[in-house]
């Protein structure tokens, strides 16, 4: 609203003008009213105007600045009219004082204009809908009507000729209509707050709570004033304190609500104040009731002591309940938020929700999309971010809650939420710890297996190129030596035998090397598997595409299939075996089925298969119902 400052400026001009006129009225020839009244009323209205300026400058879009300005200016104008009119009966009447006196008699409804505007507009403009517009437009009409009926001739002691005389009946109707409509618009304005609270978002409710707090302070301060008067304090001082507090506190609370609604933890303040008031009232009532009831039968002292005792007894259990109930009433968002967290914790316990969702749940319930749940990782120094809320288990800090936006209220809310959500937070931390430990173990096992695969490859090379080659070279030398001997001589025949032994040893070495690492894997896993199944004594249906996989995976799959075939032949007495190998979404799937007796149980053979598959990060499943064959499935991740 571009005109917020201009409106406040206009209000200020009117306020200054009215105050100046009143100063002349008070200290000039008419000497209206007590000399202390002018500074007092002006001083009381001034803070409201200054706050109007503050709000208009800091929040130019808010209608509350001008509303505060109006709230300060209207009384000044009303007082001016009244005091101007009052000069009519003095020795030095001002020009037009008669008219002013007539208007001034019923001008008081205008005192409420600022208040009604404030209430209707707080905190962010008129409520949507025609009705609220009508209420705001109806108020000045009602006020004018009341002003008119009150100022009408016949109602007030008429100092001069009446400008307009109406029949009595019409006047009565007019008075009734005027007051009813005035009262009606006032109530409607007040009810707008209730409507707004019900419909409003969190911010609106939060701001309204400041207003509620300010409104609540009025009866408390009034009661305090009564108490002060009852205790013998001079009435002026007691009520002056009340008035000052009222005129500072209420506009102050409104200004804070608009400018810095997160300044204090208003919910807590309001809740504590309200529950204190309720507790005090109840205790006073109980005390009074007991004194009345018991006082008739016992001496005074016994009665009072009993009353104090009973009051304490009643209050002990009541106090907690009152606090909770008031809290629920004043701060339903908190109740809702905590209930949602409790519901989430319950779902986690029932296994319906994942504890890792705790961050999302907290973000949602605390209405803080930037909120983060930091968890301490095992073996890591945890740095507490500044302003974060520590999450504790016992004495140790296990993490932190980092808020996106902080305020006293949000921090308190988050602390409560953190306590409430302790279980999922702790569970997700433990799961994180476990997951990382498991990932570490898997990674280290995979590294180890790569190392083993390379080691096997080296060993195979060494066997082939080292020992085996040297044996062949040795055999060749023996053959060369043989040529120097007589064919058919015993030494000649013996060399034949030795060379045969050498050949046998080379074949044996080749067999050992194959066990270490099948050299047919050099031709690729698919080719190696085809050769492997060709060695089988029963028909094997093999479906395998050409695939590129790592050395570790290839070796693991080769030996797994080999062992599966051996098991099928040895234990299951299979007559046909089918093997399917495929890569789907970077996972190598191997399925080995046979038509054997089934009923395979976990034992040494299967355990070693399972370990082999697991060693390259794969999963192994066995399905072997008795009499219906065995199927073995392995799924191994492979980035190809």
């Amino acid at each position, binding site marked *: 609203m571009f005109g917020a400052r201009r409106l406040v400026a206009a209000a200020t001009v009117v306020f200054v003008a009215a105050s100046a006129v009143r100063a002349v009225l008070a200290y000039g020839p008419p000497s209206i009213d007590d000399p202390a009244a002018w500074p007092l009323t002006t001083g009381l209205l001034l803070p409201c105007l200054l706050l109007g300026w503050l709000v208009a400058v800091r929040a130019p879009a808010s209608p509350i600045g001008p509303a505060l300005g109006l709230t300060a200016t209207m009384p000044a104008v009303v007082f001016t009219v009244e005091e101007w009119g009052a000069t009519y009966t003095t020795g030095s009447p001002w020009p037009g004082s008669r008219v002013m006196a007539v208007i001034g008699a019923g001008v008081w409804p205008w005192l409420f204009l600022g208040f009604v505007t404030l209430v209707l507009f707080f905190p962010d403009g008129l409520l949507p809908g025609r009705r609220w517009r009508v209420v705001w437009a109806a108020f000045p009409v009602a006020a004018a009507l009341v002003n008119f009926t009150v100022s009408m001739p016949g109602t007030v002691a008429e100092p001069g000729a009446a400008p307009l005389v109406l029949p009595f009946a019409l006047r009565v109707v007019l008075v009734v209509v005027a007051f009813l409509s005035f009262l009606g618009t006032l109530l409607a304005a007040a009810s707008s707050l209730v409507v707004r609270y019900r419909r409003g978002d969190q911010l609106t409710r939060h701001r309204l709570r400041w207003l509620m707090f300010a409104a609540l302070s009025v009866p408390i301060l009034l009661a305090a004033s009564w108490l002060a008067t009852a205790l013998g304090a001079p009435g002026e001082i007691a009520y002056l304190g009340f008035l000052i507090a009222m005129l500072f506190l209420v506009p102050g609370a409104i200004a804070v609500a608009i400018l810095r609604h997160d300044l204090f933890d208003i919910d807590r303040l309001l809740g504590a104040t309200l529950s204190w008031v309720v507790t005090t009232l109840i205790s006073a009532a109980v005390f009074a009731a007991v004194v009345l009831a018991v006082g008739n039968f016992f001496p005074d002292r016994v009665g009072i002591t009993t009353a104090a005792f009973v009051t304490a007894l009643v209050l002990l259990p009541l106090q907690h309940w009152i606090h909770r109930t008031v809290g629920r009433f004043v701060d339903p968002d908190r109740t809702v938020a905590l209930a949602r967290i409790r519901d989430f914790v319950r779902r986690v316990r029932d296994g319906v929700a994942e504890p890792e969702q705790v961050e999302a749940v907290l973000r949602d319930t605390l209405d803080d999309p930037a909120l983060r749940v930091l968890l301490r990782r095992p073996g890591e120094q945890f740095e507490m971010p500044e302003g974060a809320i520590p999450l504790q288990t016992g004495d140790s800090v296990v993490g932190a809650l980092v808020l996106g936006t902080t305020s006293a209220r949000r921090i308190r809310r988050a602390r409560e939420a953190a306590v409430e959500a302790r279980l999922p937070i702790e569970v997700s931390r433990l799961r994180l710890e476990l997951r990382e430990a498991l990932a570490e173990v898997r990674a280290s096992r995979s590294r180890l297996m790569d190392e083993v695969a390379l080691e096997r490859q080296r060993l195979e*090379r060494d066997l*082939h*190129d080292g020992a*085996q*080659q*040297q*044996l*062949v*070279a*040795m*055999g*060749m*030398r023996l*053959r*060369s030596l043989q*040529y120097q001997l007589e064919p058919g001589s015993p030494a000649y025949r013996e060399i034949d035998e030795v*060379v045969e032994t*050498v*050949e046998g040893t*080379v*074949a044996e070495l*080749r067999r050992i*090397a*194959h066990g270490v690492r099948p*050299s*047919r894997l*050099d*031709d*690729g896993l*698919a*080719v190696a598997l*085809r*050769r492997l199944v*060709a060695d089988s004594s029963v028909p094997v249906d093999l*479906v395998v595409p050409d695939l590129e996989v790592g050395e570790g995976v290839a070796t693991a799959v080769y030996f797994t299939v080999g062992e599966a075939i051996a098991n099928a032949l040895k234990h299951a007495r299979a007559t046909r075996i089918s093997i399917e190998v495929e890569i789907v979404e970077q996972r190598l799937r191997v399925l080995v089925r046979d038509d054997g007796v089934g009923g395979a149980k976990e034992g040494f053979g299967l355990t070693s298969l399972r370990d082999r598959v697991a060693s390259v990060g794969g999963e192994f499943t066995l399905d072997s119902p008795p009499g219906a064959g065995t199927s073995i499935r392995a799924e191994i991740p492979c980035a190809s």
Partner: protein
Amino acid sequence: MRIVIGEDSALFREGLSRLLTENGHTIAGTASDADELVSVVRAVDPELTIIDVRMPPTMTDDGARAAAVLRNEVPERPILMLSQHVETRHVVDLVGTGAFGYLLKDRVLRVADFLDAMRRVADGGSALDPAIVAALVTPTRANDPLAALSAREREVLALVAEGRSNSAIAAQLVLAERTVETHMRSIFQKLRITDTPDTHRRVLAVLTHLTG
């Protein structure tokens, strides 16, 4: 026969040189790595080149690659590959061509058989190790026609692939030569290869089929 040996193990190289010299062959040159081998063969143009599959510099298939280079230069150049173990991937392109042999190293110890194989290769024929042939005649594809062969037929096919003649096969399997002929016809029918009475060409047809 003038022979060049490409072999990185000095022990094996010297042993083989000595054995071949003693059997009346001439060692025209030796090389201990693939690059050296290619230049030596170019220089001396031997009647037979014996090459180890695994050689420096990379110790993987440098020998086989050197063989491919030499074959590209002179397509009919006789080459006998040696290997410590069965691996078909590196030589599969050469197997179907003539004047090519591929044996496991320890076959050297059966000196007579080895010399015979050398002779076959130098004459433009083929000499494949039974273990390597076994790997080749294993059905490696889905719907491989090899799967349709009987065990006996596969046995006969393996011997053909090794480069044996019908009579040699009959002697080895203790069969009448006519029975071998019958098996051959059946094999050629199942594999859809055109038969030919010439042993060399028949072997090549079989190998071309196996390595295709």
